């Protein structure tokens, strides 16, 4: 089977993350990485193709250093990589990104077929978790998101997922769009062989024109929301740190009472 995994390059969680004056995620720090949650998506795709046969293509949208994200996918074991890169994409919201990714997936489908699209459960910068749904809508494919367990048999994908109040098992015929959570698997570390193979694998670069997308539909021009103001959280004043002298529990309760937190 042919699986497409959508991955995103995000600022490193451990680094100081910030916004630009224009309210965009600051991607200038150069310490970006493959969104950790997307590694679970790559892993799920690799496991499926290892058992059922087939190939994995990792796809990303973003500026030049976003190529690191698909490189990481190749190192883990994916066979092909696509990087959609175009200056007009900068400033795209999730709708612009979904439009571009959907077009890339459609092209991959036309070139050899796509049986399954897998994403992570969220991008670790925006944490919106809506991209897979938008892809399914664009591609008119069934969606089965947030898989804690994912299996494919006889052309049907089966997903177990834990929502806020219910646990569900969903089934959908292929082709379909799924997302996997961090419960689904333990992503592998790239081994030496994978790293060497990834070096030799070319990353296919597509522009908006290659995908037949009007630049006005993406980027700032296509966005339907606008950041008015991005402000860092003020450092909390009046912070208290005590060491237990035998009465810390009582002092804690006194603090809660003072701040009217005892209900």
């Amino acid at each position, binding site marked *: 089977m042919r699986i497409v995994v959508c991955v995103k390059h995000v600022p490193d969680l451990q680094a100081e993350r910030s916004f630009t004056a224009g309210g965009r995620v600051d991607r200038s720090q150069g310490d970006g990485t493959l969104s950790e949650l997307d590694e679970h998506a790559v892993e799920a795709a690799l496991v499926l193709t290892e058992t059922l046969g087939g190939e994995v293509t990792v796809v990303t949208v973003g500026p030049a250093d976003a190529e690191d994200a698909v490189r990481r996918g190749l190192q883990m074991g994916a066979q092909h990589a696509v990087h959609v890169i175009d200056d007009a994409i900068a400033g795209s919201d999730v709708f612009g990104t979904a439009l571009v990714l959907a077009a890339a997936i459609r092209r991959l489908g036309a070139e050899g077929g796509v049986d399954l699209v897998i994403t992570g459960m969220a991008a670790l910068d925006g944490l919106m978790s809506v991209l897979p749904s938008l892809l399914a809508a664009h591609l008119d494919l069934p969606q089965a998101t947030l898989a804690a367990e994912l299996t494919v048999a006889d052309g049907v994908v089966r997903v177990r997922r834990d929502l806020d109040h*219910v646990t*569900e*098992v969903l089934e959908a015929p292929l082709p379909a769009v799924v997302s996997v959570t961090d419960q689904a698997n333990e992503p592998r570390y790239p081994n030496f062989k994978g790293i060497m193979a990834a070096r030799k694998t070319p990353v296919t670069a597509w522009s908006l024109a290659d995908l037949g997308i009007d630049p006005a539909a993406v980027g700032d021009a296509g966005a339907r929301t606008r950041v008015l103001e991005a402000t860092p959280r003020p450092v909390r004043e009046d912070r208290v740190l005590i060491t237990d002298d035998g009465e810390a529990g009582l002092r804690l309760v006194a603090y809660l009472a003072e701040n009217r937190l005892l209900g």
Partner: protein
Amino acid sequence: MSDMGSASGGDVVLVLVEQHDGTPRGSALELLTAARALGTVHAVWLGAVSDAAAARLGEFGAVVVHAVPVPTPEASLPPAVAAVLAGLIDETGASTVLVASTFENKELAARLALATGAGLVVDVSAVQRGPDGRVVTTQQAFAASWTLRGEVTVARAVVALKPNAVHADPVATPVLPLVITRDAAALSDGAAADARVRVVERTARPESSRPDLGEAQVVVVGGRGVEGDFSPVEDLADALGGAVGATRVATDEGWISHETQVGQTGVTISPRLYIGAGVSGAVHHRGGMQASEVIVAVNNDVDAPIFEFADFGVVGDLFTVLPQAAAEIRRLKAQG
């Protein structure tokens, strides 16, 4: 229907209300409260609505309740609900849709925004109208280390509001809302639920006697430091009438169920009071809790990162500090 909104003065705001056992959840009442500042409130209820539930929605400002039957489990999947809401937008001319910010609702909100050309904002902590009538939202980003204020630049907005962000306030003079039972198939233009997806199994997990983790005003969280024993955490939560949460380490160790995990990949909470016991404060956990109003930490490791952002920190043994605090709270409460 389409002139009902203007007749009652202003834009129609559709509110998808969450429910449990036929009763609106707390988050639903918060949503209705927030919606009142945006326009005329129409609640959307999936299933049959009881008189009591409708009256409750009226107490919080709903003037109309659209009851949409969900004959099959598939009919409540996000794409199907998005189609229903799109139909209701057509019927009512609504400019704004509010939903509670859960994973499923964010999905349906995105599909709805895509289908209707609306602007989408999720995980919102405040929503109002700007001077020019545009929907203006506030969000926290990067583990609540940044606050973003933004506006929807198109006429229609779909907003997913976080629980606890708004205090639910009943209206001074509630009206009994008009209940309209809708036909889901007609609303979604004959495009019924995605017939390709099948719900093989759906099991409601038993809800604990404690408040819902995502909606609780007080949450006590246990981390690695509880070393498998959640009883002091649960006891303090009960003394405070709060919910119990856990870190990824604690759920991975199997000390407590996975659903209690607070963090970027688990439940995101923003209670008035967060108490972390034996919680180090790793970035993944922070992403799910740093929007809490007041953060208290008890940890025997003075170097734990949580002390860098806790409002009140105790360096000490949680197994003595928590029981002492719980006993003191019960003593104070007994005094009235």
